[in-house]
């Protein structure tokens, strides 16, 4: 299995690195960390916490954009331009191509996560100068667990965009739908909470309650992968929520990949 995946993983890596992705990550990262650093100056009592908070938001957004960009470039465009046909001449199943590419993008995302995570770590430690906050942030295990959660979040978005890329005949669709999926998935937690608290007794909103309940069966609640209150406020998430979030994400990724393999295997390419 690994042997059949490796050419596609490696080619994804090579293509990703060749497209100056790392430089793009660094530029994006420095930009985001600058924003995080500056935003801390608006926080009179908790500059490090705000830098961490804004920085995590930045990494979360950046990883989604990068994942969609890589899916577009390494899967979508190859299908659109028919260059995928060269890859399919390997004596392996079509599924290997999709899974291999996905794993390759995951590797690029992991690298980006690590780089951005380290950059933010340095920013948080240097923010605020000599000022000691009343309540310190936790840059150790809580921080890196949170960063890992963001990576898993991006992995889910990547899986969804991969599926769309295998179906789509329109170039921009994986990017557009992937972005919509990410925004909806991340907003879902807030919407569910709002509904559960009575939706400000707004009857129009309450009418949507069954729709929101139904949506949860097809759209993962990505806010369950956001564990930033742990490093920010030292409030560790309940381990059942932590594990539950991870299992939910993993199972959704598997569903998306299986759908992608199905769709890609049945797809007909005209020369």
């Amino acid at each position, binding site marked *: 299995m690994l042997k059949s995946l490796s050419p596609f993983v490696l080619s994804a890596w090579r293509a990703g690195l060749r497209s100056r992705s790392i430089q793009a990550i660094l530029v994006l990262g420095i930009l985001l960390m600058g924003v995080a650093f500056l935003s801390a100056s608006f*926080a009179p*009592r908790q500059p490090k916490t705000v830098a961490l908070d*804004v920085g995590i*938001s930045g990494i979360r*957004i950046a990883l989604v954009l990068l994942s969609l960009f890589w899916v577009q470039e390494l899967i979508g465009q190859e299908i659109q331009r028919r260059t995928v046909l060269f890859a399919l001449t390997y004596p392996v199943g079509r599924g290997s191509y999709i899974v291999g590419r996905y794993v390759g993008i995951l590797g690029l995302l992991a690298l980006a996560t690590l780089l951005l995570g380290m950059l933010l770590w340095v920013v948080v430690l240097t923010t605020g100068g000599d000022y000691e906050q009343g*309540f310190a942030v936790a840059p150790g295990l809580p921080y890196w667990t949170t960063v890992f959660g963001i990576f898993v979040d991006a992995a889910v978005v990547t899986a969804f965009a991969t599926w769309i890329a295998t179906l789509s005949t329109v170039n921009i669709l994986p990017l557009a739908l992937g972005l919509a999926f990410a925004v909806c998935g*991340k*907003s879902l937690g807030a919407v569910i909470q709002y509904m559960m608290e009575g939706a400000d007794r707004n009857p129009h909103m309450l009418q949507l309650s069954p729709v929101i309940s139904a949506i949860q069966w097809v759209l993962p609640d990505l806010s369950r992968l956001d564990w930033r209150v742990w490093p920010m406020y030292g409030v560790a998430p309940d381990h059942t929520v932590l594990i539950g979030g991870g299992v939910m994400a993993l199972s959704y990724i598997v569903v998306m990949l299986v759908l992608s393999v199905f769709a890609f295997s049945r797809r007909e390419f005209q020369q």
Partner: protein
Amino acid sequence: MRLQRSSLKLSLALVVAAAIFATTTHRLKTAPRYEVRAQLRVALPLFVQVAMTMGDRYLAANLATIEIMVVDTSKMRPDEFAIQAQLQQDVSWLNPGNEDNYYVAAAILSWANQVDAAQNVLARATDARPYDYQPAFYYGFNQLHFRHDPAGASAWLRQSAEHLLDGPNKIQMLNLAAIWLDRTDDLSMAIIVVENMAKQATRPDFRKYLELRVQRLQGLKTLRDAAVIYRQHHGKAPTQLDELVTDKLIPTVPVDPFGFGYDIDAQGNVVLRSRPPAPKPTPSQAQTSTQTPVRK
């Protein structure tokens, strides 16, 4: 000929467009400009705030907090404080643990006639920050100062103490919670609360202190109960505590274990003294004094 006609059309279009531009520019010069205020104008619905940040509720909370931080509250109108109150409640919903948000709510909203909003923010922060005693403390203060509810205030102070580790700070907070109960009208409840606090106190000296506070409140309750009967008998409030003894409603005026004692205020209510009574003048001082005695 065709070229000339085409050039003519273009020239005509140019002249017309230039004329329209000049006319509108001239009109706009003198047209009134809407006042642009840097203060808060509108609090966007929660969903819009979350969607605008790609579904990131924490980022939405941070952006709203920055907006709150940069406004000049000294120039704000009352309706703008209402918007700030809404905005801060939104932030506390998006991220209840935001320290700056609850701090600004306590420092500004409470004093700008937005106590309900401030309490909402502080209550959420209390839940979200189990290691931080301050949100519950500010809630309690608002309850006492703005809502005149000493019992509720004391309850929040006790909750605030729960967020502190055992030590002098916790003792001080519990002490303050007991002191604030002195101001309540429901003395039976206050006595029960302080008695329970004494039972739960781990340090013996603090337990003893709370027991003295119970004794003090019991003395106050005895006097108030007697004053009610006195009022029923005489149709007026007593002017001195000794009148309750003279009427045989109580055997003696209870002794305040803290030495401050009890008093009757201008409305005829029995109250706790906030300072020890002045020493009684010696006979010689009484003779030389020309001032009219004032009832305490």
